């Protein structure tokens, strides 16, 4: 029993962490928290099921297609909901514009794909019981994504440009970095990461339109707790959240598990609004 709690806890936690990283990737270049992060995860699952189950494509073809599809959605987010808002004086409008776009994505999916959860195929058919692929696949994907991002940010020129923009937008532009192109690229990257989350967690979460808001919320918890922009913090907080949620699920039942998760989220945030691993606030006057 304990083993299965740990397995499913780590697996869902890894999916939450990946959505958290999606949030962070978009935030890094634009200072925008986008409600579409969870929808990208949801779309990853829906695209996977559409390509493999409905169209019958092999997973090696379906995965790049799903990544491309979500990357495209990421770019659309940048064009429709982020860029116009960054131009306006009231930057908080991004909360509304990304919320609007997230709702539109969800509603279109509900109408075109259906409101019932649909199955997601087995990808590799490796393992059974607590070592089933549906449990270890998300964890492995999460570790892989973090390692790849670390490599990107620390070892490559493009990655360093991302960091430069995240650290100081004005200075980066003064240095001649193509800020707008890099922002579009980071939204495409975020889309792909979201797709990976949905794809890897597909067997666990199924292809279901209502996963969008769910992932938006549970994916945000690791970001809030781990500190905005901190991918490693998001991974640790995400895995902890998954374990806590599954344990609470087993001990007190589903409804009170979500109440427990929510209470912890609120209490921790009220105590440490910057997150447990976050940086201090900027000056106001």
């Amino acid at each position, binding site marked *: 029993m304990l083993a299965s709690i740990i397995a499913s806890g780590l697996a869902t936690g890894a999916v939450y962490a990946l959505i958290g990283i999606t949030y962070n990737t978009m935030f890094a270049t634009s200072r925008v928290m986008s409600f579409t992060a969870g929808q990208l995860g949801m779309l990853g699952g829906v695209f996977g099921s559409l390509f493999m189950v409905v169209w019958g494509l092999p997973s090696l073809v379906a995965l790049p297609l799903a990544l491309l599809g979500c990357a495209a959605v990421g770019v659309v987010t940048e064009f429709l909901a982020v860029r116009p808002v960054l131009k306006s004086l009231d930057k908080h409008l991004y909360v*509304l514009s990304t*919320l609007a776009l997230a709702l539109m994505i969800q509603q279109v999916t509900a109408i075109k794909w259906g409101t019932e959860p649909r199955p997601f195929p087995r990808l590799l058919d490796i393992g059974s019981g607590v070592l089933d692929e549906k449990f270890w696949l998300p964890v492995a994907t999460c570790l892989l994504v973090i390692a790849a991002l670390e490599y990107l940010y620390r070892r490559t020129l493009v990655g360093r440009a991302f960091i430069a923009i995240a650290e100081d937008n004005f200075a980066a532009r003064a240095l001649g970095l193509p800020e707008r192109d890099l922002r579009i690229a980071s939204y495409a990257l975020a889309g792909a990461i979201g797709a990976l989350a949905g794809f890897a967690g597909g067997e666990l979460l199924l292809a279901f339109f209502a996963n969008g808001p769910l992932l938006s919320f549970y994916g945000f918890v690791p970001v809030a707790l781990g500190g905005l922009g901190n991918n490693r913090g998001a991974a640790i907080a995400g895995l902890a959240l998954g374990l806590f949620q599954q344990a609470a699920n087993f001990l007190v039942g589903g409804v009170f598990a979500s109440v427990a998760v929510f209470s912890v989220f609120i209490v921790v945030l009220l105590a440490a609004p910057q997150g447990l691993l976050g940086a201090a606030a900027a000056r106001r006057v």
Partner: protein
Amino acid sequence: MTSMSRAARPEAVIRAPAKQGMIGALLPFVVPFALALVLPFSANDYWALIATRAAIYWVLVSGLNLVVGFAGQLAIGYVALLTLGAYTTSVLAAGNVLPPIPSLAALLAAGAVGAVFGVVVGLPALRLRTFYFAMATLGFATIVTQIALAWQGVTGGGIGISGPTFPAPFDSPWGFYSLCVGIAALCTCMSANVAHSRFGRALIAIRDAEVAAEASGIFKPRLLILVFIFAGALAAVAGGLFASLQTYITPDAFTFDLSILFFISILIGGRGSIIGPLLGTILLTLLPEFAAPLASWSTFLYAALLLVIVLAVPGGIAGLIDTRRRERLDSDRKVQPHPAALGCLLPTIREDRSLTLENIALTFGAVRAIDGLDLAVESGRVHGLIGPNGSGKTTTLNVISGYYTPQQGRMTLAGAPLPFGRPHLRSEFGIARTFQTPRLVGEATVIENVMIGGTINGRTTFAEAMLSLPRHWREEKALAQDAHAALESVGIASLAHVHADRLQHSELRFMEIARALMARPAFLLLDEPAAGLSPDEIVRLGQLITAISDQGTGVLLVEHHADLIFDICDHVTVLNLGKVLAEGTPADIRVHKEVVSAYLGG
């Protein structure tokens, strides 16, 4: 011109626009409520249902509007409170926990429960930033539905519970309709009263100029809690009515789409308006009815509307129907201060008081922004604070006004210790200030902006303002008169009813001074008031500052214009690297060797 006629003038000026404004503001409300009165003659029960639903939604939205549209808190999960109100009313009326009570009493009880939970849902807003708060309310919305589903003994779980039925004459469709429209009208009045009181102005100030709001003595947590109580109670009452309209409720009835409808109604209507969100609510309630084939796309339509509004029409419906915004302004207008008018605003202070800083030190990391500073500002004098960039001038102002807490030293005001921090208490100590970049509410008129500065003088309670009791009216009138006197003295009285975002930069600087004067300060801190002003305007500004100090107010003036400093200051302190480099009369400073070489140049 004598000072008597000066004092009499402001009143004459405000009467006319205020009255016109009142009729103009009420007119749009007449249309929907007149329609609501004639609707029963259609005797079409389908219309009764739709109109009742719109009225119920508006009961909730009218409260939420103060949270979202005025205070700018992005509460997207208000369906949580609707659900709570619906279940509380139904459970109390059905009596499956306690003995059954009459439906109307149950509705009132739900309002009380909603008031409490309104605060619970809103509390995170006191600590969290926009997106975080939005997420927190979203979480509440999910949880309340799940609890309703799980708590079968009370809520009936997924099977549900029947909603309350109201006694005659409210038991027929049109009877119930009249009850709902009546409550909606009452809520409209209450929320409009709050919106047009000092509480409403303070809410907008928190939204658009939080720092200036604090300096004007507005304490955000207290104000927000009052508004959360109000909005929570209305939302829960709406829930009780909603349950009765549905006749039978299950957790499925409270979808997140409803939250979105409420939230988007406000944004489509326009922030900081009452009529806009009212029209928005009616529009969004009717939209799916008119476009029946699109019913399943309704959420998509709402979201698309939201996106269009946010990107293309940030003012919403209210912005579109507000014609005053587009009136032409005189292009060669001048700021013409009338210091004589100060007399009817500022009390003449005769006793000598001083604001002193002793050995203040403040470090940011390794940077010593202020390094053992001593400073004494005397009442009735103009004290100049000059120095190169980064010498700690603005930081000193921020320490005095409580935004920064120094690591060492002490401050006194009239001999008594002045505690560090707590910027919202400075106004009460008689310390007012302006800012290097004007902090203003662009969507409010100039006079409303100035009245924000007088928030501290208000004595009426939230309830009095909500019910528009006589004391509230008297106070509002006095406040408006003061604001006119303040505008008259700084010289922009002709712009009183213009939206602040249409003003020129120099006019905004004078408006900030007018706002600071509203608190009748004993000490006024001015942070580079002459920046961006023309030479003429600087001269007039100098006369205004001198006149203010002649009333007995002590002025601490941070400035880079050396001419202004040497013209009007009684005493000058020169800072360099957080330390006092020199101090004395302007004549001493002008010839001080180090000052000349470090700062003035020579």
